[in-house]
């Protein structure tokens, strides 16, 4: 059951509608062409139309690579459907290419007979040369296997705005909205949400509000009235779980999750961070939420970011630090200090391609072993990974919950794909979310800084300002109860073991492993993090074909769910797809002596469903 989508802006239905159950579209253009905006707005329109959806923004690391070049191409892919979907889609049904470079970089992903919309005038000699085309693909027959729609996007934009005195440059910048209007018509999306967005985005420049809104509308009308398109398409709303929905990216979901967690704990939220792609948006978002007692501290480096967060945790705040791989390297020593002083702290690593600076804007999940083991000595830390953009909200809450209950640092491994990708998010009922219990010890009787709760093995959280409980903590080894500095050999082993046991014991909080599909069989595909989507899509397809395949997804990477080994052993084979050279698979093999095999892709891009399907078939044959 679902409500009908919002009414389309233009009502005269002249052309026929062709129904599709899902469509994958990519907007591609120069980084200056506003393709990210067009993609985001199209996503929003599709969400409001009631579709399930998944997005994949893909942009260059350079802010403005030279215009018209291959290096400067930026793209935004949206998969929207009338059924549940898990990935941004493998191949494109529709490609919008704003210039020859965008065409060249993307046309290989377009399905045969796919719709290709190009801005005709941009296929001039200069742009063709920059993109390395010897002849014009619009004329030389090389695009014969596609349905090509050359549209004078730039010219029609200029015509729409000819009665304004806007400079040509400004006019040209509106053309993304023409393309968006046209595609919105093609798929019968409501454009009101975008009209509203334009109004608020350009609030201070009414002339730009009017110009962009007019161009958007012009694009929409052009679809309906021009002879170019014989019909429009319709993708009916998906049957999502009842509730109120909004679109959310992984980074936003983390930010909101932390705010909610801190409110639920009744404590201020402190974020110590140093800007780095793709994590900075969390800092930006939280910096604007001061009314929720949110402190954001843009530190001088990542070490100070986590250091300040740890100081805030000492003082009783819900403390978070956010970064990506290079910053994680810098934070290692302070994470270890948090392990030693046993204070609650959440560390978000929004993974990107590496090593070193690597691929700043591209996704990867190769920091798992660093998160698990990348610190000196025995350094047990909780590691969690969200599966989807919306799941980032729950992970943030869970991380805070674990951190304060067990007095431990918790690492969240998100990635560039989850960070910027969006999906519909069913708003949680705030009342139903559990409160996060924060108890500061104030009773001096029988108090020792390292007196542990017999169940959780957690030490008491005593914050400065508490009379009679003055104490000192530090990174030197401590006597097990008093917390006084101790170099005693047996005490050290005892402390190493108790720190390990404390974290291992958190497994009792993890619900039984969910097996999607039959609970025994030929093959189980095991995943973690953002590979959830493509694995789920590929496994469902295989199941529909009658194959004996199940899917297990782990959100808790340390400790692992206590039943995981037993669950995996129920299958003849275990496949672990990862966007790295095989990190979880290594853990599984060593932890359970199971002959799991990896499927590895390290291209800065998420898996395609087909890539996993192929491997599933191979494994089942062999």
């Amino acid at each position, binding site marked *: 059951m679902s409500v009908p989508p919002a009414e389309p802006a233009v009502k005269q239905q002249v052309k026929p509608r062709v129904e599709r159950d899902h469509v994958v579209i990519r907007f591609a253009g120069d980084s200056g062409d506003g393709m990210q905006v067009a993609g985001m707005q199209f996503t929003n329109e599709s969400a*409001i139309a009631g579709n399930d959806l998944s997005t994949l923004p893909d942009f260059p690391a350079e802010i403005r690579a030279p215009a018209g070049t291959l290096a400067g191409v930026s793209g935004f892919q949206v998969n929207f459907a009338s059924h549940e979907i898990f990935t941004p889609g493998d191949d494109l049904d529709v490609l919008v290419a704003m210039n020859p470079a965008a065409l060249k970089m993307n046309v290989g992903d377009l399905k045969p007979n796919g719709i290709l919309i190009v801005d005709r005038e941009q296929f001039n000699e200069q742009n063709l040369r920059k993109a390395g085309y010897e002849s014009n693909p619009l004329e030389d027959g090389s695009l014969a296997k596609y349905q090509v729609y050359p549209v004078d996007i730039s010219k029609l934009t200029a015509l729409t705005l000819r009665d304004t005195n806007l400079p040509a440059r400004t006019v040209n910048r509106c053309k993304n909205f023409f393309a968006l209007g046209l595609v919105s018509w093609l798929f019968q999306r409501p454009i009101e949400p975008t009209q*509203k967005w334009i109004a608020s985005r350009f609030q201070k420049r009414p002339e730009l509000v009017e110009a962009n809104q007019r161009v958007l509308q012009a694009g929409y009308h052009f679809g309906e009235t021009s002879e170019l398109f014989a019909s429009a398409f319709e993708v009916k709303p998906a049957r999502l779980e009842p509730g109120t929905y909004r679109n959310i990216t992984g980074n936003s979901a983390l930010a909101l999750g932390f705010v909610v967690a801190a409110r639920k704990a009744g404590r201020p939220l402190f974020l110590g961070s140093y800007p780095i792609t793709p994590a900075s948006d969390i800092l930006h978002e939280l910096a604007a939420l*001061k009314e929720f*007692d949110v402190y954001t501290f843009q530190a001088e480096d990542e070490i100070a970011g986590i250091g300040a967060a740890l100081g805030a945790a000492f003082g009783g705040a819900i403390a978070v630090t956010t970064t990506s791989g290079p910053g994680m390297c810098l934070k290692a020593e302070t994470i270890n200090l948090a392990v030693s002083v046993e204070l609650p702290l959440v560390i978000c690593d929004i993974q990107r391609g590496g090593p070193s600076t690597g691929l700043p804007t591209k996704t990867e999940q190769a920091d798992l072993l660093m998160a698990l083991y990348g610190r000196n000595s025995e350094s047990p830390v909780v590691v969690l990974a969200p599966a989807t953009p919306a799941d980032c909200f729950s992970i943030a809450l869970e991380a805070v919950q674990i951190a304060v209950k067990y007095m431990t640092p918790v690492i969240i491994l998100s990635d560039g794909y989850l960070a910027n990708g969006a999906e519909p998010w069913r708003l949680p009922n705030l009342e139903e979310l559990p409160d996060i219990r924060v108890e500061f010890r104030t009773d001096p009787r029988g108090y020792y800084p390292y007196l542990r709760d017999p169940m959780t093995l957690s030490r008491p959280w005593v914050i400065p300002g508490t009379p009679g409980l003055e104490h000192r903590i530090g*990174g030197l080894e401590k006597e097990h109860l008093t917390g006084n500095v101790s170099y005693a050999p047996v005490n050290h082993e005892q402390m190493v073991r108790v720190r390990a046991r404390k974290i291992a014991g958190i497994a009792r909080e993890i619900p039984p492993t969910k097996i999607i599909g039959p609970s025994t069989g030929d093959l189980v595909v095991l995943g973690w993090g953002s590979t959830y989507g493509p694995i789920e899509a590929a496994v469902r397809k295989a199941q529909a074909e009658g194959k004996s395949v199940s899917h297990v997804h782990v959100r808790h990477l340390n400790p692992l769910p206590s039943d995981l080994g037993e669950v995996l052993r129920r299958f003849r084979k275990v496949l672990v797809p990862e966007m790295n050279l095989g990190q979880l698979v290594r853990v599984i093999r060593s932890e359970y002596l199971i002959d799991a095999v990896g499927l590895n892709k390290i291209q800065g891009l998420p898996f395609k469903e087909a890539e996993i399907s192929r491997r599933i078939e191979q494994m089942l044959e062999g």
Partner: protein
Amino acid sequence: MNVLGPAQKLTRKDFVTDQDVRWCPGCGDYAILAQVQKVMPELGIPRENIVFISGIGCSSRFPYYMNTYGFHSIHGRAPAIASGLKITRPELSVWVITGDGDGLSIGGNHLIHALRRNVDVKILLFNNRIYGLTKGQYSPTSEQGKVTKSTPYGSADYPFNPIAIALGAQATFVARSIDVEAKHLQDTLLRAYRHKGTAFVEILQNCNIFNDGAFSSLTEKETKADTQLVLEHGKPLIFGKNRDKGIRLRDGKLQVVELGQDATESDLVVHDETDAGLAFLLSQLAAPDFPTPIGVFRAVTRPTYEEIVRGQIQTAKSRRPPDLDALLRQGDLWTVS
């Protein structure tokens, strides 16, 4: 801040912990500890509202010996940790203990940024011009040519001037004192406490094991009157056993003059803690041509980082009362029934 009434006045003993102090006998750190413990009762605030945060080094063991809240952290990072604590808990009195290696080598970046932000923490840098804990390598304040285990041919690099660094970082309170100058050190610590904003105090400290006598000419009874220049706001710069020498400003440079011979008192520079230019000139004075200034080089007030941030939070709240539900419902919503 929670203030104690006279009846509750604490004593030095209240700030002593049960831990054995493990510095080498004769180390200047003992004297500093004693003065800090003496000054604490003067602050008039309860023990539980005081926090000492340190990095790593001999000096950084300090928090273990203070019966307050304490955090012995990692090498160089104490200013960052202290900042996070003070920003979220401004009612606490937060002190950073650091060394010349901790604060100026590995933690130099954090130090200058803490100073420029003007978070209201008190930073005491114990400068013994050597790495004590790691057994005697040269430090960023060691004089050029210093022969140590790691520099058998003499160090090739030139030292930092901690006072000049603090001034360059726009610190609002910059002072220097000496481990064995008990009264002067106490007064300086009290001034640092009373200053609102980051206070930076360089404390010259003798490491009698690895750099003994580094400041002996400043501390020996016979010489110190001629080698120390005690800065006092509003007073002319006079020094010498017979108080017969002074500092004059001529052609943009400071000069030593003999009173009664080259100049009279009215020719001398009158110390002004609000004059940034003068503070910098004074920071450059050093042996052998000049006496070494001790006291407050600079003290000015400007809003602290945490005041500004708290102000922003208040403004945000008055503009938009916090509403979690509305926060989650931002943007376009749709309902599935």
